[in-house]
Structures are given as C-alpha cells and as structure tokens.
C-alpha cells in the first residue's frame, strides 16, 4: 500500500541532503550554465580572424588591394608579412599562423590572363573548419577592378593544403585525442587514488610512519606516468594502422611532449585530491575541469572561432597547449624548439600546480 506522506518524506529528505551537498548542488546549476556559455558564446564554427602572414612579391597597388579585400572578408587577420614562402611555411609549422597568402611578382599579369590563379593561399588545413573558411576566400573577387573578368575563369587563389591534403578528419582528430584521453584518465586516476587512501583510513596509518610527503606523492604518480605512456602508444598505434595518421615529426618529440603533459595533469590531480573529501567529489571536480578542456582547447572547435574571453580561459588549460604541440609535431613536423611557447606554458602550469599540491598536502592533521 502506498502512502503519499511516506513518498513526500523521502522527497523532502533527498532535497535537504542535496542542498547540503554544495558540490553536487553547484553542478546542478553550474553544468547547464557552463554548457550554455560554452556552446552559445565560445563555440563558433564560423571561423573568423585566422592569423595570417603575407608574402607580397608584387608590391603593387593591386596586391595591396587584394590583401585589404581578404582582410575585409574577416576570414583572415594579417598579423605579419614574410619574406618568402619558405618563411611562411616555417611560421605555419610553428603554429604562429593558420593561413599564408603568397602574391607572386607576376600577380597582375596572371590576373589579366585569367587562366590560372593569380595568388596562392597556403592553409593549415589539418582542421577541416579552417579549410572550409579558407575556401570561401578562393571564391572572392577583387572589388577594385571590375573590368577584370575573372568570375568565369580560374579562381583568384590557388589553394595549397600541405598538412592534410586528403582532408581526412581522422588525421586531425587523433593527435588531439591523445590529449583528451590523457586529461580524462590522468587527472581522475591521481585524484581518486589519493582520496581513496584517505577515505579508507590508510592515510591515518601512513602519517604515523616515516614516509615523506614527496615520497608518497611521487610514488603514487610514477605508475600513472607509465600507464599514460602506454595509453599514448596504444592511440598512436591504432591511429597509424587503422586511420593512417602520419607522424611527420620525431617520435621522440611526441613522447617528450606527452610526458610533460602527463605531468601537468597528474599534478592537477594531486591538487584535486587535496580538495576533495570523497572519491565522488574528486570525480565531480575532474568533470568540472574536463568539460571546458574538451570544448575550449581547440580539440573540437577551432581556437580562432572563439571570442577573446574564451581564448583567455583556454590559455590556462593544459590541453589547449598540448593540442597545439602535438598537432605541430605529428602533422606539421615541427620540432620541440619551434613550439617552445606552448611547452613553457605547460611547464609553468605543472610547476604551479605541484607547488600548490605540496603546500596543501599536510602530513600533520591540523
């Protein structure tokens, strides 16, 4: 026999407990807010303002007009000029620019002849969304000179897509996936492993032994570093043999970068473990961190499509830097020195979180 009082008693009790569990309550409100902000504002598949460099060998008024028109389309944002296309490609490999425009010396003659493209557009087309945006540019017409009949001839730009010529999305997704999987497992593993020890009372035993903070932390981390490296190897192998994802750069660089990224995530896991009171809380906190990581890092959506504020947040997340590094190495063949900025960012993140973790992890109980 059912009884409405009994049912309501359970409901009331549940609501009370929920209101007292501040973290869960925070998630109930926080997750929808976070999602709507991220998807509504930050995620923009309509890519604009791609960082661009220009090689202007023609140096004429018409070439200047072309650059101005391209910028007016808002697809590209010219940040620098380069001497030649070699410098252009180097900058692209370093990840400084996504698009390069090469205007040859015979630009105007080519425009007149109208049988081949007048200029070249080099695109880091590893990201299909960037490629799509760049393609819009090729359909552009020079506004200045309407006497030129080029609409029915060759397009204004010849598109050159050096890093993903076959436009396969797996090529683009797999390197970033290494970062996503490591973020998920590394942060969670460490956080839960330490919180579990506290929850089960093992820590009470350990603090009465001569074991040091640093020994305890490093000892707990080492197995997970190995697990992380195994995961990476698995993804690389599957990517290579199932999806033919190339590793253009040095394999050693891939592992070095990954090691640094694993360190960044593990130290973050340590910080979470010093904050969380239970394994469940550790999981909640990890999820809070994981969600913006996956959406803002540039793994799912192009970084250049996001508003300034979201880009600032993304710069704090280790995954953002790792996605840039790993794509640079695997797809564009960049070496670690060429990606120094992002590597420094990861190192800084690791140092900061490790400091916080050690400071917060008191061996004494008070």
């Amino acid at each position: 026999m059912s009884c409405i009082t009994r049912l309501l008693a359970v409901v009331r009790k549940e609501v009370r407990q929920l209101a007292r569990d501040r973290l869960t309550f925070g998630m109930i409100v926080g997750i929808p807010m976070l999602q709507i902000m991220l998807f509504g504002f930050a995620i923009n598949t309509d890519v604009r303002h791609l960082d661009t460099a220009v090689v202007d060998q023609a140096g004429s008024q018409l070439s200047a007009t072309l650059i101005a028109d391209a910028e007016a389309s808002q697809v590209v944002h010219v940040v620098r000029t380069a001497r030649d296309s070699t410098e252009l490609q180097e900058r692209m490999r370093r990840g400084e620019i996504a698009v390069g425009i090469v205007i040859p010396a015979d630009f105007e003659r080519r425009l007149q002849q109208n049988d081949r493209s007048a200029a070249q557009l080099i695109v880091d087309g590893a990201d299909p969304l960037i490629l799509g945006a760049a393609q819009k540019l090729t359909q552009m017409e020079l506004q200045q000179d309407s006497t030129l009949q080029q609409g029915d001839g060759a397009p204004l730009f010849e598109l050159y897509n050096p890093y993903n010529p076959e436009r396969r999305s797996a090529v683009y997704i797999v390197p970033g996936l290494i970062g996503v999987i490591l973020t998920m497992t590394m942060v969670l593993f460490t956080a839960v492993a330490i919180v579990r020890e506290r929850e089960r009372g093992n820590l009470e035993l350990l603090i009465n032994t001569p074991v040091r903070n640093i020994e305890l932390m490093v000892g707990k981390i080492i197995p997970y570093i190995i697990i992380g490296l195994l995961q990476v190897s698995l993804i690389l192998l599957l990517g290579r043999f199932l999806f033919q994802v190339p590793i253009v750069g040095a394999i050693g660089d891939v592992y070095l970068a990954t090691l640094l990224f694993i360190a960044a995530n593990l130290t973050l896991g340590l910080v979470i473990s010093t904050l969380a009171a239970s394994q469940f809380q550790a999981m909640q906190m990890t999820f809070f961190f994981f969600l913006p990581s996956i959406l803002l890092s540039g793994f799912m959506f192009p970084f250049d499509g996001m508003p300034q504020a979201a880009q600032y947040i993304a710069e704090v997340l280790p995954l953002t830097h790792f996605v840039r590094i790993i794509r640079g190495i695997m797809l564009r063949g960049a070496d670690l020195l060429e990606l120094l900025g992002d590597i420094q960012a990861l190192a800084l993140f690791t140092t900061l979180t490790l400091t916080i973790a050690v400071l917060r992890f008191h061996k004494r109980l008070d």
Partner: protein
Amino acid sequence: MSDDFAIVTEGLTRRFGQLTAVNRVALRIPRGRIYGFLGPNGSGKSTTIRMLCGLLTPSEGEAVVLGLKVPGEAEALKRKIGYMTQRFSLYEDLTVLENLQFIAEIFCLPRARRRGRIEELMEGFHLTELRRQWAGTLSGGQKQRLALAAAILHEPQLLFLDEPTSAVDPQSRRDFWERLFELADNGTTLLVSTHYMDEAERCHGLAILDRGVVVADGTPATLEAGINAWVVEVESERARVARNAIAPLPGVFSVTQLGARLRVLLEREIDEPQGYIQAALDQAHTPATSRLTSAGLEDVFVAATQGRYRGGSA
C-alpha cells in the same frame, strides 16, 4: 630521571577555536608498562595521543616522548613508535603478506632483516595460513592481529593503540591482551585508549580523562582505594521503584541499574551509608536488601567524571 619514563608531559594543552580539547595534562608514563587512557568519547584521548605522536601541535605546554621533544623531533620519533588505529587502516585489497611487506619497506627495514621479521610475526600471530588472503576478507580478530603485527613490525619502543578492541569478540580480545602483556614484558611501552572498564582494569596504570582534563590517575587498585565515595549495592525485585526512592536522596550522586541490582554512590560525609539507604527503601515500602561494598573501576570512573574523586586523600 626522564630516562625512566617513556612519556613526560607538562601543561599539555590543545585548543580548537573556542573548545579546549586537552587542558593542562601532566603525565609520567614509565617504560615497559601498559598505560591506559580511560574516558568517554570527546574526552581528549585521541587528541592527546595525536600530540604525543607529533601529528598535532600543542597550543601550550610540552611533551617529551622517548627523550625526544614533540612536535619538534617528531620525524625522528616516528621510527621509534608504532601506532594502531581504531579503524583498520591497512590495505584491504592487498594480501596479508603484501601489507606486511609494504610496511616493512616504508620503515626501511634492512632487506636481510625484512623477510625473517615478517615470517616471525606471521608465525607468532597465526597469520601464516592467511598470508595470501586479501586483508579485506579477514575476520575482525584476524584483522586486528594483522594490524598489531604491522604496528610492531619495526620493533617500536612505544606503541599507541587507539581503542584497539572495539570490533572483536571477547576471546579475540583476551588473546590480544596476552600479546600486549608479552610486548610489555619485552620492554615495549604501550599506551592504550579505551572506554571499556575491563580493558582499563588490565592496565598497569591509567589516567581517567574527562572534558580534556585528567580527573584521576594511578594503578587500578589505588584508584579504587582512593575513591571519595561510598558504594552501596541494593538488590530488589522492583529495582525501578527502588531506584526512584533512592535517587532523589541528598548525598546520593549516582544510581546505576544492573538487572535486579542497583549500584549507589554516596558522598563520604554520610555516616551510616547502608542504613541511610535501607531506611529510604523501607520508607517507600520497597522490599530490598542493601550492603556496603568496595568500589570498582567503573565506580571510580563515575565518581571522577562527576568531580568527586580526590585521590588518596579520603
């Protein structure tokens, strides 16, 4: 002088905000003895032990444990003390052997010594058969044996036991105490916190704690002799009625029912305690017999926690 004592404290105090958990505790605990902390929950037993281990910093006062000042020299102290937690704190998903190996390595026992010591302990604690079993699947008594073995693996001079027998049956508890006496005979000092009278009774010496203050200390015998109260035992078929007749009497400060018996504590100032009680029972027309008896540790505990213990002065 302090060499004869494993633990010496002076004015040891710990405050948590407004609350004074431990208030000016002075202790002198001799070596090679089992010393008990008897007190209700929240009386400051655990807080005191934690300060003695160097896990908590005292707000005031000082403590010298095994000749080392705490918390200053706590790290050096950790190699010399063992700690058995109230809750089973070894790894439930490791086997008996793996747990002992882990502890041996944590304490950096020399490799050559490790194996022999573990074998010796497993033998002595009847764990050899269980060596490959996960610790989580052991019974309460087995877990307790394992926990004790782990706590003394590095041969500590001083062993802290925080309510060690709360989860085991009486037989296991007896065996467990046999082992504790054996350790004390071999020179180990043991500090046991408990709220069981029968456990407190086994200690060589003990301190009764109440709201952070040591209200009485000594051997169980001197404590019982030193109680500043009369103990009258009343036997009645109608114990509840008898109780209602006695409890409001001036000078009676505690009545405890044990089945058909009542244990009555009265102030020392009353001249004829047995007659005084019997008169009250007769007046209430309650058939009952009463007799004066000697105090037990529980009576001391009740008297002391009500501020009616004055040591040997009575």
